[in-house]
């Protein structure tokens, strides 16, 4: 009898590791390259590159000045090395800082956009076609350095919502851009923020006027296409008093052997009673199974709850990039403001992720909630790094943080670096973290109920990430769930 049970147990364990093995062996499916005529700046970065970008965008003089100042600042700074990441030094002169699909005329509507580009986005499952208005998502699509089109613009304009590319905003709404640009992430904030400020080429701008509830999800889709380029996009969202917006961001890149750099900035400003919900599904090319290639993703995302009772919520599903360095943060300045951070970070093969959040409690009665789920497989390293700071005057601050890690395989790592700094005695801060693998008892429980090991593993992984997935808008949740399946589960449905 013992022999048999042993055999059974052995088979089960073998099946389990096979399943996990399969998860680990799936391929990146967005790795195609669109063959399209490109126009780009020469490799390297100096003042001329910045003048070139600025001239290409037809920018006003103040913008150029601003960029040059940022560039001067950047030259004085050094890349940060404190994160739990190892990668060779990046040669910043070996990158193309501006690349754009060549278009003869500026398109007035999506009909005039190069059909090849439209096809690219369709291949990615992103519809720029307004026929698909039933999906009810307004999309701004950015390929390499420029925005190629924004849908649903007119409908949004009727409500007074401005949703356009940031270069368009610099032309048409300079007063708003000047007021808010770099107000949340100052140029001097960090090395990559300074770099982005100097060379950013496009991104989205979104302004929700007072009292308006944005009727549809706004979405930006980023795609790196050209070789040797870096993508430096900049997103700015301003939500006036009493407004609401839900914003989605997605990204992919072709498969290439060399590493490509992506250094973006997202800034959010929420006034009194405003709410901004920002969701990201990040699926940049993660590199191949030997860890060759992939995107270096150095992103600064920060929101400020400026007004009372305002709320900013970050939700992210991070499955791509060979290196992720990203800490979406909330400055809780207004009294009674709320910050949320929900994250699923999946690393596989040789990916490395160092991601987390900062919640800075400044106003009174502020609340924050952090839920971070890390899944590591292959030989990847996955770190959560977070800061919860309760300032001296932040009376009655409340924070709850939870970070759980799931390890699939014995060659990967899961790390937690939470920093908690409390200077007010009326605050309550809680943090908890666990690390474990999928339990044999959990698998056994499923097997016993007729669920095979393969399905059981998928079920458990989905359950593990569910708390975060539930926060995603519905259109996105489906995509994210699929992505999770692709990144880890291989043949598992």
């Amino acid at each position, binding site marked *: 009898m013992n022999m048999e049970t042993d055999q059974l147990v052995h088979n089960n364990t073998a099946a389990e590791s096979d399943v996990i093995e399969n998860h680990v062996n799936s391929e990146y499916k967005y790795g195609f390259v669109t063959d399209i005529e490109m126009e780009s700046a020469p490799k390297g970065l100096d003042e001329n590159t910045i003048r070139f970008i600025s001239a290409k965008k037809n920018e006003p003089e103040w913008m150029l000045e601003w960029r040059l100042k940022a560039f001067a600042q950047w030259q004085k700074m050094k890349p940060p090395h*404190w994160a739990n990441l190892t990668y060779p030094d990046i040669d910043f002169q070996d990158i193309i800082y501006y690349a754009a699909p060549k278009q003869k005329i500026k398109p007035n509507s999506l009909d005039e956009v190069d059909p090849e580009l439209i096809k690219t986005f369709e291949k990615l499952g992103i519809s720029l076609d307004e026929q698909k208005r039933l999906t009810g998502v307004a999309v701004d699509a950015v390929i390499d350095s420029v925005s190629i089109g924004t849908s649903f613009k007119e409908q949004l304009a009727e409500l007074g919502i401005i949703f356009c590319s940031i270069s368009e905003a610099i032309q048409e709404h300079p007063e708003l851009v000047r007021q808010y640009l770099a107000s949340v992430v100052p140029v001097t904030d960090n090395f990559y923020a300074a770099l982005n400020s100097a060379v950013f080429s496009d991104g989205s701008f979104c302004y929700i006027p007072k009292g308006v509830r944005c009727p549809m999800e706004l979405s930006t889709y980023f795609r790196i296409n050209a070789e040797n380029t870096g993508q430096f996009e900049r997103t700015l969202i301003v939500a006036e008093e009493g407004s609401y917006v839900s914003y989605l961001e997605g990204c992919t890149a072709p498969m290439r052997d060399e590493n490509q750099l992506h250094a973006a900035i997202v800034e959010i400003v929420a006034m009194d009673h405003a709410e901004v919900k920002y969701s990201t599904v990040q699926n940049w090319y993660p590199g191949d199974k030997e860890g060759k290639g992939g995107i270096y993703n150095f992103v600064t995302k920060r929101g400020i709850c400026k007004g009372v009772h305002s709320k900013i919520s970050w939700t992210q599903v991070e499955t791509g990039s060979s290196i992720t360095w990203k800490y979406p943060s909330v400055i809780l300045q207004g009294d009674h403001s709320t910050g949320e951070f929900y994250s699923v970070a999946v690393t596989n093969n040789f990916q490395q992720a160092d991601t987390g959040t900062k919640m800075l409690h400044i106003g009174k009665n502020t609340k924050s909630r952090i839920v971070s789920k890390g899944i590591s497989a292959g030989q990847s390293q996955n770190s959560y790094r977070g800061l919860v700071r*309760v300032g*001296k005057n932040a009376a009655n601050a409340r924070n709850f943080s939870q970070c759980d*890690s799931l*390890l*699939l*395989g*014995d*060659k*990967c*790592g*899961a*790390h*937690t*670096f*939470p*920093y*908690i*700094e*409390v*200077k*007010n*005695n*009326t*605050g*309550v*801060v*809680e*943090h*908890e*973290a*666990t*690390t*474990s*693998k999928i339990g044999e008892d959990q698998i056994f429980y499923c097997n016993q109920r007729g669920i095979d090991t393969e399905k059981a593993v998928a079920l458990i992984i989905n359950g593990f990430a569910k708390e975060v997935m539930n926060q995603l808008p519905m259109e996105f949740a489906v995509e994210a769930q699929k992505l999770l399946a692709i990144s880890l589960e291989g043949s598992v449905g």
Partner: protein
Amino acid sequence: MDTITYFKDRFEKLQEQQLDSRLKSLRDGAFSAFEQTGIPTVKHEEWKYTRISDFFSKDYHFTTDLQEQQFRATELQPFLLPGHENANIIVFVNGHYHAEHSVLRSEELEIISLEAAAHNQYAGIVETHLGHSADYHKDGINALNTAFIQEGVFIHIQKGKTVNHPVYIYNVTDARSGNIFAQPRALVHVGENAQVEILETFATIGADESFTNQVFEIAVEENAVLSLYKIQNDAANSTIVSTTHVHQVGKSVANVVTISLSGGLVRNNLNMVMSAPYCEANLSGLYLQSGHTHVDNHTVVDNRQPNCLSNELYKGIMNGHATGVFNGKIFVRQIAQKTNAYQTNKNILLSGNATVNTKPQLEIFADDVKCSHGCTVGRLDEEALFYLKARGISEATARSLLLHGFALDVLEKIGSEDVRQYVNKLVTASLNLG
């Protein structure tokens, strides 16, 4: 002469004096490490919340013979711990071991100088374990102690023996004439199947500044049991950097309790290195501070082999302008499967000017493990207070009752009845219980 130049000068003299010392090359290596890394500043990740670099602008000196002669055994009287009549006593004055004030009551125990141990039958043990902690402290302060090892002690507990009398270690700093920089050093070797209980305390005499930079390394062999209680209740003019490095060489049990009640600045580095399967480590700490004190507990649990268990519980109560820091690291190496590692840190802030910075950190490279950490910062439970007040207990008494209850979890980890009652009294006094 600034303090760093002073160190350099003294170091060169020491090396000239002791040309045939076995420890010479160890000191050399440590001093060059010190020169390279220097005194850690707040830019050093492990020293982010604790600033000691400022102290080095003060004029510190190592002890002079004159100051040591001044010290009389009677002066130890106010600091004596309960049960001292029955204990083995080891006294360090200004970082130097004083045999004349020390008492040896157990024959299972051998106490000799490190220099002597490096030349006799213990040379192998000294070579393996002395300076082992340097791997975990890539900063100058640990190296600084090693650079000046001369009169440290080697304590050996014979294998198979239980030391019936506990070992009491007094780290006395005599700062009556000038600022003193003291660097006590000890290496303890707990032999196979041996058992020992060590109690350690710190005391400053005099009103000048005292800086104690202690390194205490303990090697625990197969089936041995170590209990270490650290009581820090020093004066406000004292600064303590205390590194305790427990290396579990064989399957063994180590219990360490750290109680920090007062002092100017206290920094504890506690490392538990589990180099054998089936080791067990229990770490607990209570820091109860008021005034302008700063207490920083850094712990490392390094799981290097499978099937180890560690439990960690640190609790803090911060009042006045006090700052409490906790940094707990758990490493699980790739081969250390089936590790169970638990960590809890709870803090109560009593005053609007107190601060708590906590960083529980997990670094895990093995998958079949159960690791968790939890930490909280908050205030006393209003409902519990109300419950007590509703039963006719005054607010002040109710508060101290609750705080005492909060601290009790840690006090209960102290195995020795005498010590537990003594610490309980100190805690009660500082919580102003009636």
